[in-house]
């Protein structure tokens, strides 16, 4: 790689992809329409795929190509397709309702990013990877996805938040360690796949029972 690009440029490109990822996380946090949310999720997966493949190319880690291919197949193509189909089959309303208004959520998100950078700083200095500067961004994206999950009142956005969190974790793995070992990555991909199938079944059950996917119906159990 050094023949083609200087190490500094590699670092720049990785940082740029990381910032796009963070930007997309914020965009998801601010998005009101459910279909756009799915598209943003797919875009996030695409950036993740690009950065994984680029890191793989820059460092000569061949298994990262496999990881990038899994990301492309599962998170850019398959999951958005399944979610789109689900939305159509379930006839979900277009708008995403939030429990806290969106500007407040974004402000909380900024605080989370600062927090994440502070937590990640001592750790990222110890990582031996060219991508280590992005660990803070990865953690920030994890926390933003988490924030999205807890501020949305509908089931589908919550699940997208969950999947975005999975994306961010993969990004963290690339940033800190050049990806998890192959066997683990395959296992995680399998879990995500099975999880989404179970969720699809589950959505139909919830809908059949409540005529809606608003999880505020699911707040009867206390203590």
């Amino acid at each position, binding site marked *: 790689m050094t023949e083609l690009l200087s190490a500094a440029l590699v670092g720049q490109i990785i940082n740029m992809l990381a910032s796009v990822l963070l930007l997309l996380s914020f965009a998801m946090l601010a998005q009101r329409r459910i279909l756009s949310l799915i598209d943003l999720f797919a875009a996030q997966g695409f950036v993740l795929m690009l950065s994984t493949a680029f890191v793989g190319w820059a460092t000569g880690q061949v298994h990262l190509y496999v990881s990038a291919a899994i990301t492309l197949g599962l998170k850019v193509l398959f999951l958005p397709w399944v979610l789109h189909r689900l939305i159509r089959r379930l006839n979900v309303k277009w708008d995403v309702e939030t429990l806290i208004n969106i500007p407040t959520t974004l402000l909380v998100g900024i605080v989370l990013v600062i927090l994440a950078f502070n*937590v990640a700083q001592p750790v990222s200095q110890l990582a031996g990877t060219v991508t280590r500067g992005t660990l803070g961004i990865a953690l920030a994206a994890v926390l933003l996805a988490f924030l999205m999950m807890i501020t949305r009142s509908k089931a589908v956005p919550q699940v997208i938040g969950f999947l975005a969190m999975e994306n961010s974790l993969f990004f963290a793995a690339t940033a800190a360690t050049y990806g998890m*070992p192959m066997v683990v990555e395959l296992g995680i991909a399998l879990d995500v796949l099975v999880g989404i199938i179970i969720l699809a079944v589950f959505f139909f059950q919830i809908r059949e029972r409540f005529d809606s996917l608003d999880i505020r119906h699911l707040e009867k159990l206390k203590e």
Partner: protein
Amino acid sequence: MSWEIVTVLGMPLVGGGVLALVGHRRRAAEVNIALSVATFVAAGALVASVIRDGPIIALWDQFFVDSLNVFLVALTAFVSMTTAMFSRPYMRIEKDHGRLTAGRLRLYHSMYQLFVFTMLAVLLANNLGIVWVATEAATLTTVLLVSLYRTPASLEAAWKYFILCGVGIAQALFGTILLYMAAQRILGTGFEALLWTHLAGVRSELEPTVMAIAFVFLLVGYGTKVGLVPLHNWLPDAHAEGPTPVSAVLSGLLLNVALYALVRCKVLADGALGAPYASRLMMGFGLVSVVVAAFFLSRQRDVKRLFAYSSIEHMGLITFAFGMGGPIASFAGLLHMTVHSLTKSAIFFAVGHAAQKTGTQLIENIRGLINVSPTVGWGLMLGTVAILGVPPFGVFASEFLILTTAMREQPWATPFLLAALGVAFAAVFGKVQPMVFGESTASRLPHPPALVPVFAHVALVLTLGIYIPPHLAHWYREAARLIG
């Protein structure tokens, strides 16, 4: 190649596939039992071979058995076997009451076996990445079991379970990534850097800053599945709304399995950071869980929720014991894991039949079990007395060891523990006593209840309280030495 490990893991995996095809047939429950018995026999062979030849590493180093996990494998295989025996009449009665269809029974049987598989995989995995994958898979296999009745409450419980455990376990993945990062500096890239056997060898060289942050994430992640307060919200709902056999294995096995994963991580963190860091965190979480759960007990109106909170309390106590560390506390923690698992599943068996007899899970509507069905009544009473730590049951022995060690090493915690145990005793006994004695509201069941598992478990717990066989004691000591 170790055939015992392959059989222990393969039997429930194949079983899940087979039952996915035939799980709705009349004899599916018997097939379920047969598979569980086969798994237990294989686990027995595994125990024998570990006792004979020492630890085994198998399947390209990805799976291993040592004295710590072998006893949990045996316990898991045993309780899943007795639960399969209990579920045969129980689910038949549920079907007769019209709460389940044949299709859902198929889902239940298949998922039950797969759930057992994932738990055994967590216990046997050497690769901490696989531990994570299998823990997540354990959540996935049980989500549809919790919502098996498709009532609004059960759907809500399953949703909560999925989201909370999913988020929690994602934190554990981040912790695992950080752990892998710390290990890579010593063991190089590749899966060796996630193998517990390799990591344990170099644990004192792992980077302390990274390990400190990694352990917090691992504690929060696996702690969610253990049901530690304040991450416990999913637990009472999932226990109360799922079918009783699922409550029994969730409470008796899954919590243990998650705690096991946490303990493995603690061993590594201790090596990197020195003792107090991980210990203090675990003692803190454990103590808060014991106290909070004890005070929630008295407010419960649903009998399964009551015992779910009791599980949180006991898991907190075990976490506290492992946090204290040292040979006696770890011994007590392992013993408590065993007796809690046996007792709590026995209680859920009895509670399940009691709820079927009275048609409700509300404590105030279950009255005088002993008049209509002495066996269910006595089963519930004995189980309750055992779980509350009355001598001579095994729970007393382990709680006594934990408390005396706490008095010596962590005297500040003792008043909290004693107060919590006292409050728990008053709350649970006061609620269960009128359920068992007095005027009856129970009726007869279409099929005879399965009570052999209840009394078998209670008898084992009683035995462990009076006499721990030297083999087993040696085994606990070995495992406690590993935990440190």
